[in-house]
């Protein structure tokens, strides 16, 4: 019966990417929110409700009717009502006891779900005072194994509805049976596409684009949300932003969920200004939101916006100070104020609240680094890696730690790891280049700097470093080229921030053109030199020399073209758009 009902629900959902009937979508969202709530799936309910809130309100006549009760439902109603109230009070065992023997889908799900949650709760409680590792392993198995056996029986008999399949998938995942779990989640998404929880679980299990390609997903509008989400997870930011934009265009412009996801996406590609403005907008719409605020604080931290960060910290602290995100924001705040001990303390608190919150490990590592407590930093980073092997910041942090310990060769391994995870992030490449430079491996260093420039250099230092390398190697031609590119880069950005190395670049160029006897260019550069304090004298001297030599020689052509160092078009095409494969630095080492 349940299966048939679910099938009907599935056919109700409009085809993929078809957002023409927003009212229908809203109806579906409202009804699924209700159904999730009935089953105690609060997060999925919240998600659906949030999304529904973003759409136009429905008139009374169109509100979805409460789901019809079947005979079975009626039979189990008393038990269900009692158990649900116990469930809401987190008395899971008690809830499960009264639900024993219930046949209706809703009651059965709540029965199984209570047992699952009870097992999870006990596990968390007991890891604190277990007899040792022996117990830790056993606690996990008990509830899950029984659940798996029962659920798999039902699954074989095709008696599970969408929610039941979801629970079965969760149990499988907890047992580390990833492949089976993915299959079951896909099935759950087919049976009940509206349930966001199943999609979210899929997101966590899919590790690369290839896997995504081979999934057969139901062709519904929910798929768009899923794709957008997973693209963000897989760092395919371009695609993710496109998806989100089309969702906004389809009518979800008010959804805080989408706005926050877009902000996170911008954060991931380090488009800080955009991300910041979107987050501010988000806070205006949803002032008591705590989710994603840790990301926001990271952005504020990077831009050193002390007052804003302080305001955010105080605000969040007022809302709920025992949330992981709050602790993280406060940690960032202290870190920005250079009170690193306190910052570390707050990150530790965040970890106590949620041991699986891996960002805190990395941030704590950074704090220990600031405190020069390298061993603790290494430990913290290692923990971060243990929780998530793909945490490139932790690998990068480990590399930095060893670099501080003056072990450039040793840290190569860590930087390379980070680079493999983020092939088009220039910071790792510059760090790698610096290490190679220290090791006197100039060829590799040059490769790194060049690649850093090619993927879009964030700090704009790669070219200068490359130029200096060329200078060292007496490759004046290439050095000059690099400096020219560097100056073009700076000018095209139109940044007001004074770059230290600009004067160096002009000085070198002036000397270079002087040597090449290109007087016009040389004098242009020398004049530029005069604009900077540290090169003013040199510039003037050079100008005088040029004048002398010019007077000696014949009068050269006088047509002065536009300064060569200004780019022809100001749109520099160096934004990091392409995905590139990791740099193959040396084939023999891992």
């Amino acid at each position: 019966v349940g299966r048939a009902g679910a099938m009907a629900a599935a056919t109700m959902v409009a085809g993929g990417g078809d957002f023409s009937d927003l009212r229908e979508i809203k109806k579906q969202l409202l009804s699924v929110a209700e159904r999730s709530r009935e089953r105690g799936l609060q997060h999925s309910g919240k998600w659906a409700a949030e999304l529904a809130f973003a759409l136009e309100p429905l008139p009374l006549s169109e509100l979805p009717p409460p789901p019809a009760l079947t005979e079975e439902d009626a039979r189990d109603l008393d038990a269900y009502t009692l158990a649900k109230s116990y469930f809401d009070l987190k008395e899971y065992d008690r809830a499960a006891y009264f639900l024993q023997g219930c046949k209706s889908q809703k009651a059965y799900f709540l029965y199984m779900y209570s047992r699952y949650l009870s097992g999870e709760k006990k596990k968390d409680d007991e890891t604190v005072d277990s007899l040792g590792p022996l117990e830790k392993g056993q606690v996990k198995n008990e509830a899950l194994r029984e659940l798996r056996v029962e659920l798999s029986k039902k699954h074989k008999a095709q008696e599970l509805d969408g929610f039941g399949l979801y629970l079965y998938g969760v149990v499988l995942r907890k047992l580390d049976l990833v492949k089976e779990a993915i299959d079951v989640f896909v099935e759950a998404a087919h049976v009940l596409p509206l349930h966001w929880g199943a999609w979210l679980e899929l997101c966590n299990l899919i590790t690369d684009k290839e896997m995504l390609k081979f999934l057969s997903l139901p062709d519904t509008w929910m798929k768009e949300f899923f794709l957008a989400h997973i693209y963000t997870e897989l760092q395919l930011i371009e695609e993710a932003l496109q998806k989100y934009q089309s969702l906004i265009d389809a009518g979800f412009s008010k959804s805080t969920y989408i706005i926050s996801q877009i902000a996170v996406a911008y954060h991931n590609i380090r488009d800080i200004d955009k991300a910041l403005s979107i987050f501010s907008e988000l806070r205006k719409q949803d002032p008591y939101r705590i989710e994603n605020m840790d990301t926001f604080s990271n952005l504020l931290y990077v831009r050193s916006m002390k007052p804003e960060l302080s305001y955010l910290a105080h605000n969040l602290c007022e809302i709920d100070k025992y949330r992981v995100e709050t602790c993280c924001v406060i940690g960032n705040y202290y870190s920005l104020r250079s009170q690193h001990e306190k910052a570390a303390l707050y990150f530790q608190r965040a970890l106590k609240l949620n041991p699986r919150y891996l960002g805190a490990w990395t941030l704590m590592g950074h704090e220990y680094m600031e405190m020069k407590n390298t061993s603790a930093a290494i430990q913290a980073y290692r923990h971060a890696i243990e929780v998530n092997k793909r945490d490139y910041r932790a690998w990068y942090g480990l590399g930095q730690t060893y670099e501080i310990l003056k072990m450039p060769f040793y840290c190569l391994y860590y930087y390379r790891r980070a680079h493999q995870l983020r092939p088009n992030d220039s910071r790792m490449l510059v760090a790698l280049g610096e290490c190679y430079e220290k090791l006197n491996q100039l060829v590799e260093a040059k490769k790194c700097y060049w690649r850093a420039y090619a993927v879009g250099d964030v700090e704009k230092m790669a070219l200068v470093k490359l130029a200096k390398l060329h200078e060292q190697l007496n490759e004046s031609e290439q050095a000059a080229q690099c400096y020219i590119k560097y100056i073009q880069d700076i000018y095209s950005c139109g940044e007001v921030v004074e770059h230290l190395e600009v004067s160096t670049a002009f000085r070198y160029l002036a000397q270079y053109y002087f040597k090449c006897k290109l007087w016009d260019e040389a004098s242009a550069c020398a004049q530029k030199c005069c604009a900077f304090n540290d090169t003013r004298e040199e510039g003037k001297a050079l100008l005088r020399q040029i004048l002398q030599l010019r007077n000696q020689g014949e009068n050269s052509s006088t047509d002065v073209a536009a300064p060569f160092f200004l780019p022809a078009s100001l749109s520099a095409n160096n934004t990091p758009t392409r995905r590139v494969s990791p740099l193959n630095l040396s084939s023999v080492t891992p």
Partner: protein
Amino acid sequence: SVHESLYFNPMLTNGVVHANVFGVRDWVTPHKMALLVLLSELGRAGAQLGLLERRRLNRLLLPLLQGPDMALSRLRKAIEECCPHLAGSVHIRLKLMAEGELKDMEQFFDDLSDSFSGTEPEVHKTSVVGLFLRHMILAYNKLSFSQVYKLYTALQQYFQKDEKKDGTDENEMELTNPEELDGKMEKEELDGPLREEEIACSGPLSQKQAEYFLSQQASLLKNDETKALAPASLQKELNNLLKFNPDFAEAHYLSYLNSLRVQDVFSSTHSLLHYFDRLILTGAESKSNGDEGYGRSLRYAALNLAALHCRFGHYQQAELALQEAIRIAQESNDHVCLQHCLSWLYILEQKIFDSCVLLEHSVNKSLHFGLPYLASLGIQSLVQQRAFAGKAANKLMDALKDSDLLHWKHSLSELIDISIAQKTAIWRLYGRSTMALQQAQTLLSMNSLEAVNVGVQQNNTESFAVVLCHLAELHAEQGYFAAASEILKHLKERFPPNSQHAQLWMLFDQKIQFERAMNDGRYHVADSLVAGITALNSIEGVYRKAIVLKAQNQMSEAHKLLQKLLIHCQKIKNTEMVIRVLLSTAELYWRSSCHTIALPVLLQALALAREYSLQYLASETVLNLAFSQLILGIPEQALNILHMAIEPVLAHGAVLDKGCAMFLVAKCQVASAASYPPQKKIEALESAILNLNEAKTYFAKVDCKEQLRDVLYFQARLFHSLGRTQERNKCAMLFRQLHQELPAHGVPLINAFK
């Protein structure tokens, strides 16, 4: 409180308080409780036990205390084998406890501490058993109420599992689990992956058990790899261990060693770095102010990384890592570490070019800092290098003897082994096969020092591989091919193909096969072996290729190859190979009938061989020289110099060489007899025939039919000229038989020496 947080809070990992933070490295498990029951029963039984039973039980106890937890049935079986009576009473006590109440268990632990009390306690407090008892009592007393209850339920399960099993099949015991839901349906539904996982998770180890497991496996890896767990299963165990205790740094190190076994660069690097990341933590913990422990592990981390790269042949990377280690060690004035670096530096430099100075310096310094191991390792390397450089043999042997004194003094059994292996190799280099044989046998039949101490025979070290390989080759040279292949089979077992020293025997195996193929004249087989040899040792491979070409009469190709090889070997100062190449070149010349050109080449080879005291090569050169002289028509002179060479060849040479030498002597005798008066001539011919007989037996040993045929022909001619028809006919008949078997090669008989 802010200040406290400066140091990393070790109690917080994954948000979970770890038991070992409180110094409890052990905890009570049902298995341990069973052991406790056993101990108390032992105490109770007292004098009733027979001496034999008591001894057996005592021997059983230690592995039980240290080993991983096991199922009750296995434990019972183990006890039953020693003393059935005791097993029964242990079972009854456990049954009473498991089927009784919680208070029975509490009472049991209360009673345990009684064994220490009294004027004459049953158990001494500091004995192994006493320590175990006290550990357990302490661990039990620290348990909270819920933990005690959990322990009790665990005990009940432990016992029930055993009861259930008694009914079912014994073999299936491992697989069934306590909460097995009834009915076979469910059991079938639990498909493969889950069950496998459960087996892997079967034995979470306590810290003590884990330490025992790691040290045991590590020492097995070092001493006798074949006895250790297979790489895959060891890795599985380690992963399991790390899952339950991620801070167990040593497990990462073992995982590194394990990855080295299978030549996995990636995971070995990963594990090594992970280990040191973790070690740095513990170093900082143990000495909270200490830059000492922490900095030290940094240095050794870099050094180990260098070693790893060196092991995988990434010499440039290794050098960079080493430089780093040296720099850090210098900054912190760690001379011991510097010494280690220096030795590694030497090894690395050796891969690139020779540098005696560095090594001498290293030896002196090591002696100064009292590092006997490094010092004698240095001496050994020095000796090896000097041997290649042609230094006086007596001095080298003296040096080895001196360092041997050092080894025996410090009981460095590993170095003793290396020293003997080195002597074997040096004697072989000098061409004294008897001495080499003797040394090889010494090592193999010597009881290692370790054996006395631990009972673990160190027998998968490189020294053993070297010695066994030499032994195989020596046997093959003497024509004992069966024995040689027996030795190689043993090598294959002892050093499985993916292990570190496997390449050694692979090379020797192919070399022996190659020689055999050449002897039999199966050149195509030899040619196919060349590729394999080249893969393992490029110089040797090229040389063999040239030999095959020569044998196939492709003279100009062979010559080209040999010239190239000669230049290369002269550059890398591989004198042994230079001489061999010169010999082969000379052979090429005389095969092309250019004996006059061959002579200076041979003289050059002779001079080199004499200079580097490579005696065997020298005598081989003399043989070649004599042959050239014979062909050039001065057999008397040839005979003269043959006398010089024949003795060492017969004493130390390979059977084939002996045969060739005797054949050559006979030829010279015949040639010089031409000018003798008739009576003397007959005598000369007679003795030539005798020599030919000897040559024949040698050739027969290695089954060289072609040479045999030549000898027979020659002998037949001699008999003919002596008029001994009957013998002549016999020889001729044998010759005819062989001749029909073998295709004739166009080279005139007299012109072939080899």
